């Protein structure tokens, strides 16, 4: 998972994708997750961090995390081309 390097995200959750001109809002927990993805944190590390900080359980967060990643993909916020090259 690699967020497109052109995508900018502000502290208060405003996301702008200059490639498409689209902008988004993200809630605080979503900002934390996007920032961790940007920092190349592996999925397990992100889940561990969230479970330690927030009152949720592993299975509960797992499906929400999966849904969130799907939404980031559907909005073309991942750098899939470079991701493929890396692989």
């Amino acid at each position, binding site marked *: 998972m690699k967020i497109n390097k052109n995508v900018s995200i502000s502290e208060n959750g405003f996301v702008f994708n200059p490639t498409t001109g689209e902008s988004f*809002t993200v809630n605080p*927990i979503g900002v934390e997750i996007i920032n961790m993805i940007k920092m190349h944190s592996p999925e397990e590390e992100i889940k561990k961090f969230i479970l330690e900080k927030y009152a949720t359980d592993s299975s509960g967060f797992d499906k929400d995390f999966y849904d969130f990643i799907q939404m980031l993909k559907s909005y073309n916020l991942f750098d899939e081309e470079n991701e493929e090259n890396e692989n």
Partner: protein
Amino acid sequence: MKNTDKIKYERPIIKRLDAGIPNKFGLRTEYTPMTHIDNVSVKSLVAEFGSPLFVVSEKTIRNTYNQTKRAFTLRYPKVQFAWSYKTNYLDAVCHVFHQEGSWAEVVSGFEYDKAIANGVNGKNIIFNGPDKSESDIEKAINNDSLLHIDHLDELYMVIEMAEKTNKKPKVSIRVNMDTGIYPMWDRFGFNYETGQAWDALNKIMFSQKLELMGLHCHIGTFMLAPYAYSTAAYKLADLALAVEKKFNHNIKYIDLGGGFPSKNTLKGSFLPGNDSNPSIDEFAEAISSALINAGFHPEKLPLLILETGRALIDDAGYLISSVIANKRLSSGKRATIIDAGVNIMFTSFWYDHKVSPAQPFTHYTEDTVLYGPLCMNIDVIRENISLPLLNKGDNLVISMVGAYNMTQWMQFITLRPKIVMIDLNGKVHLIRDSETNATLTDLERVPEHLKKFDL
């Protein structure tokens, strides 16, 4: 870190900003959670009575009734309400209306017997509806109830029953008419414009076996045009004055039926019902002015009867529900499944009901479709609604569900839930228990040859 020391969890979301583009989900209107109903916590109600759960507010019923009554009595000197049983015939609800002074308006033998069992005096029961059996009519005649005749077959049957019982039944006729609205309801009663109503009145008067008490109409449902009632009142008054002129007989009452809207929002409405539906004062003004100006002698003004149902009870009903699951549809749209379906929320087919979360939430929302629990594609409570981020187990309160849902609900796929009433002191009373499998299977019979099978 203990779970209690952790930050409250909200699932991550990302929402595209579509500034300036009209949004079919509409603006978010709920900015505070509905944690309590009449100062009783929603969570405590769910803990004690389960979910889903219908909640009826006695305070709201009484307040709405008295506001509506005031709107009419301020403008017209003789007003009587008759509680429309079909709108909500839970005994506890009927008792509140009867305590406030409402008569009973029933449309079947079942409802008639319910009103009698509730302690309503027969002379205070208005018997409407196209289906009255011979025994229903006989019962109503013996109890001096007001029989509202729907068709000629019924008129002749009542005349026969009058001879049989040797009593003079108290009758009215139901009149349908063109009041300038679409669709015109002409399936109930006798038509005004074609002269059917006048013919029926003549038959009643010439028979000399019936006591003509009043004239009745019910011009439609969820009516948004007060002027239509004005037209109806003028036409009924015209018939009443014609009867007085020809037969020197005073019509005792004019019954304008019901059909006033609640504050619910009809599907497809541009504005919320709370802002756009006419107030009860507008209807009261239209009806009262028409009757006062119709030409009655001031000392012979007929009693105005109103059979208002929906407008008196809708606001007092709530349905508490719980989130079963969240999912993402192929279109990317959020779907939330709750444990209350259209089988108990019949009015979801007509209204965009107000839905409020029952726990605190942040300002982040998602465009959501709200599904019920039934394995049926039609089970949709709201097609498009902007809701905060809900987790499994969260509660929602659906407002303004007091009319029809608790009578038109169906036992289908799931069993029907409990209903509670919160009294004026905040005490919660169970007024209808939830169904069990036995509620249904006790009525069934399996033929002997079908009882055994090997799988």
